[in-house]
C-alpha cells in the first residue's frame, strides 16, 4: 500500500471517527434535553424537538437511549420509551433487524432498571423469538417483576402438566418451589390453591408481608370530614397503651388487635365498633435485620395516611371508590432493628349500604412485592 493511500485511509478514519463522536455527542445532548423535563410541562418545548430527532434515529442508537433511561424517572422514561418504540418499529417495518445481541446483553444485565429491561426484551423478541426459551427460565428471581412473571408462568404450566399427568408429589414439589418466586396476586393465588389441594399449607400473609398484629385506637371525630386534616395525638407521639385520648364519644386507648385474615384485612367496624364520621389509627412494629428500601402497600375503601418511622409517606383523601390489595403504594427505608408503621383510616358519613366498610390491609415488602425475610 502506498504512503498516499495509507494517509488517505488515516484521514478517512479520522473523519469517520470524528463524525461518530459528533453523533455520539449529539445523542447525549438530545437525551439530556429530554431528561430535563420538569413539572407542569416545564422543558417540554425543548424536549419535544429533541424527542422528534430521537424518533428519527436508527437502530444503532437504541442501546444508548435504553441506557439513558436508567434512573430517568417515570416522566422522562415515558418520553424516551416513545423514541425506542419509534426507532424499533420503523427498523422492523423497513425489513431491517434490531441489534439482537446488544439487546439481549442489556436484558440480562440486572443493574439496569426493570421496566427498561422489559422494554428491551419485548423488542428483542420481535427480532429473535427464540430469546424467550433462552432467557425466561433464568428469570425466576429477577428483580424486574414483569420478567419474573413470565418465568413463573412458564414453570406454572410445567407444574400443571405434572399434575395432569397424575404425578402429584412431583407437582406439589414444583408448586412449592415456585411459590417463593411468585409476586403477582393472581399467580400466587393459583399456586397456593394447588399446594393446598395437594395437602400442603401456605402462609399467604407471610408470603406477601401483610402486617396482622396491630394496636388500634379510635374513634376520633371526623364529622363533616374534619378528621382527615386534624392531627390527633397518635400522629404526634408514639403509641402509649397507658395514655388515654379524647375520642369522638368518650375516652379511647390503644388496644391490641390481630386479624386472622390471610390478606391482613383489619375490620375497624369489628375492632372499634360501628361508627360514621370518624378516624382510627393503627400502629405496628416491623423488624428488619438491616437498613433496606421497602415498599409499603395498602388497600382501603377509606381516606388514608401512612407514616413510616414518623415520616408521612402516603396520603389519599378518597372514600368508598373500591378497595383492592396494593391499591396504594409508597416507598421508604427500614432501618436495622425496630420500625414503626402508623396508618390513619378515616370513615365518612355516607349512608349508602356500600359505604359502611371501614378498614384496611397493609403490607411491608421488598421492592418486587415479596415478603421480607
Amino acid at each position, binding site marked *: 500500500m502506498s504512503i498516499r493511500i495509507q494517509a488517505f485511509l488515516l484521514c478517512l478514519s479520522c473523519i469517520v471517527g470524528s463524525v461518530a463522536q459528533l453523533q455520539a455527542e449529539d445523542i447525549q445532548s438530545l437525551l439530556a434535553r429530554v431528561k430535563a*423535563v420538569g*413539572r*407542569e*410541562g*416545564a422543558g*417540554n*418545548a425543548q*424536549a*419535544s424537538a429533541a*424527542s*422528534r430527532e430521537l*424518533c*428519527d434515529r436508527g437502530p444503532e442508537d437504541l442501546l444508548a437511549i435504553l441506557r439513558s433511561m436508567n434512573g430517568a424517572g*417515570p*416522566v422522562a*422514561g*415515558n*418520553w424516551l*420509551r*416513545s*423514541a425506542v*418504540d*419509534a426507532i424499533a*418499529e420503523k427498523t422492523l417495518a423497513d425489513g431491517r433487524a434490531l441489534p439482537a445481541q446488544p439487546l439481549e446483553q442489556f436484558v440480562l444485565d440486572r443493574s439496569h432498571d426493570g*421496566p427498561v429491561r422489559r422494554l428491551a426484551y419485548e423488542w428483542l423478541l420481535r427480532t429473535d423469538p427464540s430469546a424467550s426459551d433462552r432467557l425466561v427460565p433464568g428469570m425466576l428471581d429477577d428483580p424486574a417483576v414483569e420478567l419474573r*412473571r413470565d418465568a413463573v408462568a412458564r414453570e406454572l404450566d410445567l407444574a400443571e402438566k405434572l399434575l395432569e399427568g397424575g404425578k402429584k408429589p412431583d407437582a406439589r414439589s414444583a408448586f412449592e418451589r415456585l411459590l417463593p418466586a411468585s409476586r*403477582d396476586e*393472581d399467580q400466587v393465588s393459583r399456586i397456593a390453591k394447588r399446594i393446598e389441594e395437594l395437602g400442603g399449607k401456605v402462609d399467604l400473609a407471610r408470603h406477601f408481608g401483610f402486617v396482622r398484629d396491630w394496636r388500634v385506637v379510635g374513634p376520633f371525630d371526623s364529622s363533616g370530614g374534619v378528621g382527615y386534616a386534624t392531627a390527633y395525638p397518635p400522629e404526634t407521639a408514639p403509641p402509649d397503651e397507658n395514655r388515654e385520648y379524647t375520642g369522638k364519644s368518650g375516652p379511647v386507648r390503644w388496644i391490641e388487635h390481630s386479624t386472622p385474615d390471610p390478606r391482613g384485612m383489619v375490620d375497624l367496624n369489628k375492632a372499634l365498633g360501628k361508627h360514621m364520621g370518624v378516624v382510627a389509627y393503627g400502629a405496628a412494629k416491623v423488624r428488619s435485620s438491616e437498613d433496606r428500601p421497602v415498599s409499603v402497600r395498602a388497600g382501603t375503601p377509606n381516606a388514608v395516611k401512612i407514616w413510616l418511622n414518623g415520616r408521612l409517606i402516603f*396520603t*389519599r*383523601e*378518597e*372514600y368508598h*371508590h*373500591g378497595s*383492592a390489595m396494593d*391499591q396504594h403504594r409508597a416507598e421508604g427505608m427500614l432501618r436495622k432493628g425496630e420500625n414503626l408503621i402508623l396508618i390513619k383510616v378515616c370513615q365518612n358519613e355516607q349512608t349508602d349500604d356500600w359505604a359502611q366498610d371501614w378498614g384496611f390491609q397493609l403490607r411491608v415488602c421488598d421492592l418486587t412485592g415479596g415478603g421480607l425475610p
Partner: protein
Amino acid sequence: MSPGSVKSTCRLPSGLILALFLAGVPAAAADWPGWRGPGGSGVSDEKGLPSRWSESENVRWKAELPGRGLSSPVIAGGKVYVTASSGVKQDRLHVLSFDAVTGRKLWERQLWATGDTQCHPKTSMAAPTPASDGARVYALFATCDFAAYDAAGRLAWYRSLTRDYPDLSNQVGMAASPVLWEDLLVIALDTDSAAFVVAVDTATGANRWKTERPRGINWTTPVFFRRGSRAEVVVQSGRGLTAYEPRTGEVRWVHEADLDPIASPVAGGEVLFAPGGNISAILPAAGDEGPRVLWTSPRIKASTASPLHYESRLYAIASAGILACADAATGEVLWQERLQGPFSASPVLGDGKLYCVNEEGVTAVVDLRAENRVVAKNPLGEEILASPAISGGSIFFRSDRHLHAIGGGSAQPGE
C-alpha cells in the same frame, strides 16, 4: 383563522406561523376529531352511511387491538387513532394509528402508567377519548398520563398529571375526555381529593390556565358552546354547570342544580341540554341575566349515554333502553322507541339515522325519516362500551379486542 390570514403574518417566526396555521385550520369534513365528533355533537354531515351489517357483512376492515378500552376512535387526516390499556395491572397504555381506508396499522406507541390503575371492573385506563387536529393526536388516560404524538407517531410532548398534581385520584376510574379549542386542550379533572379544569397548549402540553373546582367525583366531558360571538367551555358535574372563558379559565357563570356526573351535556343552537334525573334545557347567562332553565322534562331522561341534539330535536336513551325524541324548544316528547339495552355508548347520528349501540354490541339503526323507525339491529358479536365514530362513509366501533370499520367500501383487514 383561515389560511389566507396566515399570509398576512409573514413576519412572524416560521414556527409561530405553523402553530397558528395548525391551530386555525378547521377539521376536514370527514374528520371525527374527538369524543362525539365535530363540536362534541355526535352528528356527522356524511351521507350514504350503512344501515345493515353483521360480524361478516358490510365490514370494511377489522383490526386487532392490544388491550381494553372505552375510548372512542377518532379520525383525522385519513388516520384512525385509538387508545387501549393492557397488562395485569392495566399499567400499559397504548396509542395506535390506522389507515382509515385500509385498516393497516401505521404505528403503535406505549406509555408506562404513572398514576393509579385501580378502577371499577367495567372500565379501564383507556376510558377518555383522544382528540386530534390532524397534526397531532392527544391521548389522555385514566391514569392521568397525557401524551401528544404527531401523525408519524413521534412524541410531541408528554405530561404525567398525577406527578404534577399528586392528589388526583378517582379509583372508580376517570373518563372525561380532552376537548380541542383552537390551540388549547381543555380537560376537566374532578376527583374527591383534587378537582380543576385545565387548558394546555397543544404544541407543548404546558398549562395555559388552570382553575380550581369544588372537589367531587365526576366523569363528564366539557362542551364548547358559542352564543353570538362569545365562546364558553361548560363543565357539568353533580352540582350543576360552570361556564369558563376559554382563553383565561375565568368563571363566567354557574348554574347550581342536581345534574348527572356521568352523561355529558350537549349544545343545540343557543341552548344547553343538561342530563340529570330529567333533562333540562338551559339558556346560558348573558349580560346581567343569569342562566335560565327553559324547561325540565321528566319524560326524556339520559342514563350513561349522553343526549344528542339534531335539527330542533333532542334524543336521549334512558336506563331502561327507551329512546325518546323531544321537541328541543319545549321538551315535549314526540315519540319513543323501546331499544334493547343497556347502553354505555352514546348515540351518534349521520345520514338521517341514529346509531345506538348497546353493551352487547348490537346497534339499533333508527331512521328518523322512516315510518317504522328501527330499520335494523346489527350485531358485532362482542361487547361495545365506547361511542362510535363516523368518517369517510364508515362507522367505527371499538371493543376490548377489535376496531371495526363498518360500511364505506371494502378492504382486506390489515391490508
